[in-house]
């Protein structure tokens, strides 16, 4: 298995390096630890191989706005964009990004499985190539709770009596509404069905009301680990990789509550008209070994089944990465898959309502 991987990679490298002249690629991503992992797993090897220059742009948080503005201007400077699938659906519908035929553009798995079979079910989009599965989880600082009273369920977020202190939550309705319902007794599988009704929405807000005065709202992914480290909050919602990195790299005493994790994909899209230019990079970066390599630097699960099998330990340590992945069995029991279709329809209205709720 491993030999074939290396052979494919070398082979792919040889064929690719002959093709294109060195160029500069503007790659938009999330910044921080996540961009670092992409740098090490995809960009550095690619630059070494082709002589291309890769410029990192930390604009993924506003990627849809940027794509719309650049397309309107007729001057698209971005070459590859890291985006959430919900944004990618909209961008694809609006014709802002190229349609990608996975089996034609991407590399097959080392054993020859075509990409459409090798990527996780329903993860490839019309214009979207997933890289990772990440998760929105609740984290806490273990030094703030007695050993025998550590929280382990999402209910703790709403339990001010047993777990006092401030909570840091992301300033958007997504995740928070799901958690409110689960903590209020809705089964993880029924969350979106309940949320589709007016009563469900009201119920979620009513639950959120109970902790509203104790919430600090964050907007940048780097904030929650910071707030936990400063002990400004007892709980923080966060991306699981950031928490993992803070606890491993900076020895922070953080722990993750996997209960009711809201997981989703994250991946690449290509601005309209750029596919020819970036096809080779895209195929390289989403090939089995690269996706597996990324998991050495951050605890996000690869979106290819063939890569998952290769995940081992964190780079430079003997920490087994598998138990830190959102898809790891025990972590996955009560997981909620973010419903992109639901949010594509309801985000406009629920954001409005969420903002109104915030300032009431």
């Amino acid at each position, binding site marked *: 298995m491993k030999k074939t991987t290396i052979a494919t990679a070398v082979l792919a490298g040889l064929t690719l390096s002959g093709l294109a002249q060195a160029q500069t690629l503007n790659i938009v991503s999330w910044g921080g630890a996540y961009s670092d992992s992409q740098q090490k797993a995809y960009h550095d090897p690619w630059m070494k191989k082709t002589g291309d220059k890769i410029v990192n742009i930390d604009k993924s948080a506003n990627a849809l706005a940027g794509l719309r503005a650049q397309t309107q201007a007729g001057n698209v400077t971005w070459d590859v964009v890291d985006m959430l699938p919900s944004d990618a659906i909209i961008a694809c519908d609006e014709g802002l990004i190229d349609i990608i035929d996975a089996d034609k553009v991407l590399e097959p798995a080392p054993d020859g499985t075509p990409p459409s079979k090798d990527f996780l079910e329903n993860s490839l989009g019309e214009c979207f190539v997933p890289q990772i599965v990440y998760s929105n989880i609740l984290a806490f600082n273990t030094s703030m709770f007695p050993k025998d009273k550590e929280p382990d369920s999402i209910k703790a977020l709403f339990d001010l009596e047993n777990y006092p202190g401030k909570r840091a939550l992301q300033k958007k309705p997504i995740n928070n509404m799901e958690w409110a319902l689960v903590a209020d007794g809705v089964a993880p599988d029924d969350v979106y069905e309940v949320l589709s009704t007016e009563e469900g929405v009201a119920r979620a807000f009513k639950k959120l009301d109970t902790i509203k005065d104790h919430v600090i709202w964050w907007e940048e992914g780097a904030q929650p680990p910071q707030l936990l480290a400063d002990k400004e909050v007892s709980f923080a919602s966060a991306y699981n990789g950031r928490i993992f990195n803070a606890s491993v790299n900076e020895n922070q005493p953080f722990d993750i509550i996997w209960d009711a994790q809201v997981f989703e994909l994250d991946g690449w899209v290509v601005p309209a008209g750029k596919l020819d230019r970036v096809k080779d990079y895209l195929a390289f970066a989403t090939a089995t070994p690269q996706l597996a390599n990324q998991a050495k630097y951050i605890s996000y699960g690869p979106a290819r089944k063939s890569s998952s099998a290769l995940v081992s330990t964190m780079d430079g340590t003997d920490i087994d990465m598998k138990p830190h992945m959102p898809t790891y069995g025990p972590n996955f029991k009560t997981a909620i898959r973010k419903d992109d279709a639901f949010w*594509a329809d309801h985000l406009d209205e629920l954001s409005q*309502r969420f903002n109104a709720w915030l300032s009431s």
Partner: protein
Amino acid sequence: MTLPSDTPEGLTTADGRPLKASLEHAVRRHRLRALMLVLPLVAFLIVAFILPIGSMLWRSIDNPEVSQGLPLTSRAIADWDGQELPGEPVYAALYKDLETGYADRSIGRVASRLNYQYSGMRSTLMGSARKLGRLEGPPWKAAMISLDRDWGEHDLWRMIQREARPWTLSYYLSAIDMQYAPNGDIVEKPGYLQLHVKLFVRTLWMSMLITALCLVLAYPVAYLLATLPAGKGNLLMILVLLPFWTSLLVRTTTWIAILQQQGVLNDILVSLHVIGNDERLQMIYNKTGTIVAMTHILLPFMILPLYSVMKTIPVGYMRAARSLGAGPVTAFRRVYFPQTVAGIGAGSILVFILSIGYYITPALVGGESGRFITNLIAYHMQTSLNWGLAAAIASILLFVVIICYLVYNRLIGVDKVKLG
């Protein structure tokens, strides 16, 4: 140059032309030269500033998405009377529009646009477009409704008819928390969706409070500066000018360092045992944070105009009033204060205008309760991507600012603005 006013026509210049004509010619030439000096800048500002603002104002009512993305449907629905569901021709047009729009991927913009007005429109449109292939043929009305029941909703068609016009008021309505009822009446949004008016009001009252605080703090300082001997006055003036010249972000950062929970002020209070270590005060990321930081940042803009007015008030007036028997309070109230009203007006309007348009400081230290309407403009620009709504809110804010500006211009004159 004095001319005998009764016979100006009679005079001539050295080269024999009538003096009046020659003078007029000279004036014209001067006027032309002055204009020529100003024009490049005016032209530059029109291109780089006035036009952008104008096009933004236009965007707040511009509504091209539906009429361009669903052109046939827009035309077909235009003269629908709104009583029964639209007839077959409208559904046929819709079918055609979806077919072309899906092929050239222009339908997505319509979906995004209509989803603002009608939650779920995105999947209704996109889903129907995707599934068009399943339809076998006319009649399209029944076929479309079978694809998605929403196409049989009367209210949805009213909305499409309304938004098919090339311009719209719905962004402005949304900006003041109103909306169209299904029957076309303009009604208030439900309470749980109301936000903008509240933020406008909050921006106004907090700006007034900040202006008032600035005035209270600036008045004694300006008085001291104006009445001190020039040497000492200039020295103290530096204390006013230094913050004035210091980066806005620096000043905001310092307030974060001072006011945050693990910050300097809380540390001092804890070490003085005024509060316990676990009852540290929340002084930032809320209204207090915004008010304190903004008062600090805008204070020089109040001190400077007050100072320049007070500087012109002769000291003798107060002395005269005192020697005529007025007590200190009366002398101040009846003699000094009235003469400073112009300065108070100038400083207050200036601070108020600057305050309602502030974005950076409320965004960094305001938290939820200290947000201004400007933060919402940024939110709609960058996050919700409802640019029409952002433009509408910005236009309303701009209108308020221009009113204040005109008042200011009337009272003081823009050419009297002094800097430092």
